[in-house]
């Protein structure tokens, strides 16, 4: 169980996505009903996964008026046993677009921070009804919200907020939306079915509007290990991201208040003693090595201000102008802004500029990115044409662009760290496939981690043949980050790879009963649309898919030839059973005997026939 407090970041307004709702999968009542189901179910599974809870998800769709013809309003409710959302975050998480906790670098179903809100938005637009959210993080108190969305302002409007005592943790969302279950029903059922295949550790229940109940119990008793959040890889970075990281890399100039002064005095070991300016400086020099950064910054400022603690109390630092070597401050006593020159030769000057201009390039690289050591950082600086000790804060816009371009191009970075990925694992995948398809043959593979433009990914695959699988294969089940992909099949990279396969080469002919399951895990699945339905072809991903499929196909071919042999043996046994009795009958009359020879034993014995003998 991880105890990371998820950071909620808000990125951009709802207006934009309202105008682009087609992209997000809310184009018509059929598609929208299906997409809404997905968004809520995936949020529930994500939440449970992250906390290591075996998901137990209940989903129900009820018609508001069952007599009306489709499309018509439906009430969609999804309830889970996950961690819930803290009361104060609920309105933001469900009432704001691009508000999510999953932007950090690790694998999750959610990526954009807009799924739930889009569904709610769609419901509100089509039925003008609020969303009901019930959330309990402790299993004791449950917060119940009734929310509407203010589209222009990208802000939630709380209609009602109450609390209630409960016994179970978890979250439940309920919306009213225009849908067409007559058309969307089969897709939704497929979705639930396929989701339970790739989430064999979850229990999923679906009550459909016609009163049918679909229940999939969990079939494995181990959760796949949760992914860890990691630093980004240099290859997957752009200028905007570098800017955001730089902000974090700069140290703020400490506010010099009473508490700060007290801390400096203490660190210099002054006690109640009042030292003059030079005395303070001497003391500081002696203790420099033991001092913390904020204390050093205060000392450096004092060295240019030439002030003791008393005087320091009466001013406020306004600005440090590094290029003009000037320090500006506000004097409370004179109520005016003043400045002093800074001596660039002074060691204190270095301390100050270092703090303001942030980390050096090499420190920035080794500390903020994954898989870059000091040696690689220096090599990279040379490659990009920067001094290794160049301060990040001193970079111009042009230099930042050059830096980001060089980061993409430099080839000596180690490949991305896959520990942020959460593949299902070969064993659960195999169990799931066996349970779902009841095949005669099943083989799975997890390819080693690989990366495309800075994003690590892992391909998992399974192949199954015979048994209860229907003919007409290969039937392809595509997954990405444990989401089944059901729409837009034609343009998907997985299907491209499968269709390129020449199955006759693997002894598979006719109308074969076989299934291929693919699962791509990545911190960033290259979806073609926000609707998350098909994966674009990246050569690296395509290659891994191909290798995986080749491996499995070879296994299948080996099985098929064994199966062929077994069928041959059976045929042969049938031949013996047919002909040996005849031979016995004829030989009995020919030899003038009355009783037939005892050949039964021969038929029972396993017959290993060397057909080459003759």
């Amino acid at each position, binding site marked *: 169980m991880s105890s990371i407090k998820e950071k909620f970041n808000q990125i951009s307004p709802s207006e934009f996505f309202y105008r682009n709702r087609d992209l997000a999968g809310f184009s018509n009542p059929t598609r929208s009903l299906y997409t809404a189901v997905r968004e809520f179910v995936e949020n529930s599974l994500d939440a449970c996964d992250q906390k290591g809870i075996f998901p137990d998800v209940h989903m129900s769709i009820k018609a508001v008026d069952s007599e009306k013809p489709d499309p018509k309003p439906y009430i969609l409710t999804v309830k889970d046993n996950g961690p819930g959302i803290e009361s104060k975050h609920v309105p933001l998480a469900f009432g704001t677009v691009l508000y999510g906790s999953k932007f950090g670098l690790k694998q999750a179903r959610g990526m954009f921070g807009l799924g739930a809100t889009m569904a709610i938005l769609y419901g509100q637009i089509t039925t003008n009804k609020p969303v009901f959210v019930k959330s309990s993080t402790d299993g004791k108190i449950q917060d119940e919200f009734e929310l509407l969305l203010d589209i222009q302002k990208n802000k939630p409007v709380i209609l009602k907020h109450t609390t209630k005592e409960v016994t179970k943790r978890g979250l439940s969302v309920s919306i009213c939306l225009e849908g067409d279950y007559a058309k969307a029903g089969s897709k939704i059922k497929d979705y639930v079915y396929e989701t339970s295949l790739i989430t064999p550790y979850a229990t999923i229940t679906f009550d459909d509007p016609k009163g049918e109940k679909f229940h999939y119990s969990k079939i494995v008793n181990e959760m796949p290990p949760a992914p860890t959040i990691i630093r980004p890889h240099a290859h997957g970075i752009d200028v905007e991201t570098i800017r955001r990281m730089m902000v974090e890399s700069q140290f703020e100039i400490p506010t010099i208040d009473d508490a700060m002064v007290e801390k400096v005095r203490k660190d210099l070991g002054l006690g109640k003693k009042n030292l003059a300016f030079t005395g303070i400086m001497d003391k500081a020099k002696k203790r420099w090595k033991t001092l913390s950064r904020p204390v050093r910054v205060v000392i450096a400022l004092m060295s240019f201000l030439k002030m003791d603690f008393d005087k320091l109390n009466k001013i406020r630092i306004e600005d440090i102008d590094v290029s003009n070597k000037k320090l500006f401050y506000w004097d409370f006593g004179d109520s005016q802004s003043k400045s002093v020159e800074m001596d660039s030769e002074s060691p204190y000057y270095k301390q100050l500029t270092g703090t303001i201009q942030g980390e050096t390039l090499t420190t920035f690289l080794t500390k903020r990115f994954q898989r870059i050591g000091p040696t690689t950082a220096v090599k990279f600086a040379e490659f990009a044409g920067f001094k290794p000790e160049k301060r990040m804060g001193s970079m111009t816009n042009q230099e930042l662009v050059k830096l980001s371009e060089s980061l993409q191009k430099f080839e000596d970075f180690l490949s991305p760290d896959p520990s942020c990925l959460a593949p299902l694992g070969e064993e659960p995948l195999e169990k799931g496939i066996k349970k779902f398809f009841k095949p005669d043959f099943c083989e799975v593979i997890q390819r080693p981690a690989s990366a495309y433009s800075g994003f690590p990914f892992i391909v998992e695959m399974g192949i199954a043949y015979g048994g209860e699988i229907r003919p007409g294969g290969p039937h392809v089940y595509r997954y990405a980050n444990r989401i089944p992909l059901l729409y837009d099949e034609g343009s998907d990279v997985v299907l491209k790879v499968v269709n390129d396969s020449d199955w006759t080469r693997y002894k598979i002919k006719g109308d074969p009963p076989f299934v291929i399951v693919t699962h791509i895990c990545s911190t960033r699945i290259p979806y073609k649309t926000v609707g998350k339905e098909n994966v674009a072809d990246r050569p690296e991903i395509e290659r891994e898919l191909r290798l995986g499929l080749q491996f499995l196909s070879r296994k299948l071919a080996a099985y098929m030839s064994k199966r062929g042999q077994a069928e041959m043996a059976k*045929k*042969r046994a049938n*031949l*013996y059973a047919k*002909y*040996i009795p*005849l*031979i*016995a009958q*004829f*030989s*009995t*009359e*020919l*030899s*003038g*005997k009355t009783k037939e*020879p*005892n*050949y039964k*034993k*021969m038929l029972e*014995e396993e*017959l290993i*026939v060397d*057909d080459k*003998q*003759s």
Partner: protein
Amino acid sequence: MTTNKAKDRKLKTNEKQKSIIDALKMHGAKVYDDLENGQFPKFSIPSRSVSNIVYDKKIRQYILGNSAALRSSRNSSQLRSFTQLMWLAFFANRLTQEKKSSTLRDVYYSSQAFDIEFEDQSESDNIIVDLEAILSKPREDFHIFPEERSSIFGDLNIEYTIPGYEGKTMNLSNHPDGYAIGPSLTTAELLDTSAEIVIAIEKGGLFTRFVEEQVDKKFKSIIINTGGQAPRSTRTLLKRLHDEMGLPVIVLTDGDVYGEHIAMVIKSGSANAAHLRDLTVPDAKWVGVWATDIEKFKLPTIPMTESDIKRCHDLQSDPRYQEGIWKKELDVFLKIKRKAELEAFSKYGLTNITEKYLPQKLELAKSL
């Protein structure tokens, strides 16, 4: 004396029958024992592939060499044909025991009563040849006969041995169309004859002519129509006439390479029947129509076809065509590239062949 001789012959026929039945029983018992001991039974069948057919100079016929193929019931791809062979042996045993005869076509249909499927008659014919090879006995010995019939005419008394006719006798000059050579005739006892020679002739038309012209009386002969390539029953009968009645055999064919070979097969067998002996009359003589006769008798001719020429070349590499008239006539055919039929003599009158040509050839035969 005659009755003694007849008894002798009867004994011989019975012996022959017994040896077939014994052989079949022996093979059957072997298979029975194998099964009883939990072993897959198998047969060793003399190989009939070209590489195993050799010409035996001493007995002047093609025979099979020593290589044999194993047909095992253990081998699933041979199991079916093994069973077919077993069935045939079983069926042949019944035929022989019950003295019933059957034809190749009959065999094909009879199999269906026993759940033995033959895909077509050629498959069952092949199995019959397999059994012949195993027993080294022609199928006629186990009462399977071909459909094609050739015919016989002349003063010859026979006594039937087939069930229902046993003891009944017949003179083969009583019916001018001749008598079909079938199972009852080949298995009949040959009692006595006034004839001094057997004339085998290739064509039905000429056979009728010879009967009309009373060649049997004029030349003290038995006339046999081989109907093209002589069937085995006819060859068996020819052999018996030669061996049992002491009659010389002469052969008269069309003047072409096929005619020459018809005579050769009667004399020394065919490669197809290399697994069988006792079908040949090594002393038989081909008296015409020779290639040299075409010139000599100024016969109307027709040109040889491509296949005729090819056949000539094929036969040139046959060891039996390396000397004597066989080689000489073949060379001439190849040289003149023309051929003449027996009917060609009609140019000089319908009786020309019996009145002029035949006497000359009969005379010549004595010196051949």
